[in-house]
């Protein structure tokens, strides 16, 4: 059975509580034929640098890969942190994302899905104000006035 490091997303714990992220990551580990054996989380000061998980991986743990909660853990200012992803893959570790249910076994897989990652990062920045919610608010307000 494969063994994975779990890295929940520190930045979104308020919206998706840590236990729920653990469930999602555990499910992704199961889909990849394995289980979570270690977990860690970035500090608020290391969200962009990934120093915590990179430090753990630099020790060469006997695992098959790392499962993050979501792709956005590697987004910053509308771009994707390809460098860190490639650094992890080049050490022989698989990378997976539970929320998106996608996995990269090697740098070639990362390269193949680069358009998806780059576009997702760009759209994440652009759409983060969630315009659809603004659209819905007048309707909700009208409904609340009536009830």
């Amino acid at each position: 059975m494969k063994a994975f490091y779990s890295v929940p997303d520190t930045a979104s714990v308020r919206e998706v509580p840590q236990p729920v992220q653990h469930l999602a990551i555990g499910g992704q580990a199961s889909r990849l034929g394995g289980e979570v054996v270690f977990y860690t989380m970035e500090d608020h000061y290391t969200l962009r640098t990934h120093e915590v998980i990179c430090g753990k991986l630099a020790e060469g743990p006997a695992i098959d890969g790392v499962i993050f909660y979501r792709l956005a853990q590697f987004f910053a200012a509308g771009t994707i942190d390809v460098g860190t992803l490639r650094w992890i893959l080049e050490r022989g570790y698989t990378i997976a994302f539970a929320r998106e249910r996608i996995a990269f076994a090697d740098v070639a897989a990362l390269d193949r899905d680069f358009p998806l990652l780059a576009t997702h990062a760009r759209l994440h920045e652009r759409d983060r104000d969630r315009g659809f919610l603004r659209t819905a608010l007048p309707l909700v307000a009208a409904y609340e006035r009536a009830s």
Partner: protein
Amino acid sequence: MSSPRPDQAPAFVTTDAGLDGFAARGFAVVPADRRDVLDAVRDDVFAEARALVKYRGEPAEAFFNEFHTYGLAGTELNAFRVALVDAVAKRLAVGRRFFEAFGGALATLVGSDVAVQKTVNLVVQQPDDPDQVPTHRDAPSNSHFEVVLWVPLVDVYGTKSFYLCDRERTAHGLALLQEGASFATFAEHVRVQGVDLAMRYGSGLLFAAGLAHGCKVNAEPHTRWSLNLRYKNLFSPYGSKGLAEYFEILHLSPLSRVGFAFERQEFGLAPRDPR
């Protein structure tokens, strides 16, 4: 605005002119450009479905229409649906194949950079099954910049189909809500004003995600089978269902392929021929 029942010679809806009127109505029913591709998908759904029941040897159309005579109900029917949806999602690549089957209309609506829903929804609506989808709109919270492709695997009409309000009638319903009407009033408006679409197998319904729609209890003598999924321009606004988690890239324009080739280089990845 119900469509006629079979004994009243239903006027099956087609818009052979293509998408004329889509901008006004918000929907269009179009014939498959590649009927052979659509037929192959239906054959594959048939093969997956008959493997899950004590199949009696009937052809596809009879199997689908008379499916209720297999007597599945309650948890047994739900287990069948779950197993079949899982098989269809994992093995049949419906998003890609339907883009081949209905590609002309879809490309006109969403352009050349196309994202498609990662999974496909399969609905089996047996006669008199009270468990049906209530009145709703996909957007919001989905994005308005998505088109729903709804494909029946059998001829549908009357309550065997589903009701859909066009753009103008949906807008009128929204105005009721904005004036303080209850959601029940809105839903009744949609149910009364909506059209029970009559469509032959071989055609697909394309509709904007903001149109109000729903299902009635199927009072016709046959079971409805339908597939639905969503397409959008890759770079268009997303709602609560985002790229990567809900949508994947289906097709890139030549310009986008060149653009990503340059970006690959800028991000330190190996150069890749964009052709």
